[in-house]
């Protein structure tokens, strides 16, 4: 299962990377989302999976899943959400200001 997870994470990272390297701003934003998902799966797969119960005490299990990666991920998800929101609105503003979403045209010149 961990192997499957890790490979899934890797595939998502690949797809995310590919999208980030394209020209369209929207694809780039979506790419960062997918990249982030990949990272989160990787983070979770670093905890011993399925070896324990849900980390709620009272489940009366002998062992629990490692709660730390989950907690870290929660933090990371929130931060990513904040960044995605900001990034999205930034792209939106940029598009409205420049009239393009092609990163090649957002190059800027040396003499600015």
């Amino acid at each position, binding site marked *: 299962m961990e192997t499957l997870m890790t490979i899934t994470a890797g595939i998502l990272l690949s797809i995310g990377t590919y999208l980030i390297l394209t020209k369209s701003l929207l694809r780039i934003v979506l790419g960062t989302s997918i990249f982030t998902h990949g990272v989160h799966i990787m983070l979770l797969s670093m905890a011993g999976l399925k070896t324990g119960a849900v980390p*709620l*005490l*009272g489940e009366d299990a002998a062992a629990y899943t490692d709660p730390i990666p989950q907690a870290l991920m*929660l933090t990371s998800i929130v931060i990513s959400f*904040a960044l995605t*929101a900001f990034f999205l*609105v930034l792209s*939106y503003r940029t598009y409205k200001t420049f009239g393009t979403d092609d990163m090649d045209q957002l190059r800027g010149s040396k003499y600015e």
Partner: protein
Amino acid sequence: MKFSNVMLETATKIIIFIVLTFSTYLFFAGHHNPGGGFIGGLVMTAAIVLFYMTFDVVTAREVIPVNFRKIGAFGALIAVTTGVGSFLFDVPFLTQSFTYVDLPLFGETELATSLLFDVGVFLAVIGSVMTIILSISEDV
């Protein structure tokens, strides 16, 4: 964004009520079950968004006359100051404590300062996310 449909309006009112209840549940459940300030806040935001979608922004503004940026800041302030409170008791920053109180009706209830911290998170999430959504929707 205005849905001028009475049916929909009534339906959403009910849904909002349910979502609000769910959000409150999630918030309090967080201590022992899945949930907590963050999720509670997000669900609450969803309810408010739904409310805005049902009634137009102007009406919604009149009904909920709040500045969400300040709510967000207020939440953050609570979250931080609960930590600062520990300065007064000469314990490390962000030390939480909890106790069990026998309340009428509720029976033995747990009171934890971390709940207060979670309230801060709850409010901050609502304030911030609503700010984001409202800013965009007003511009569009």
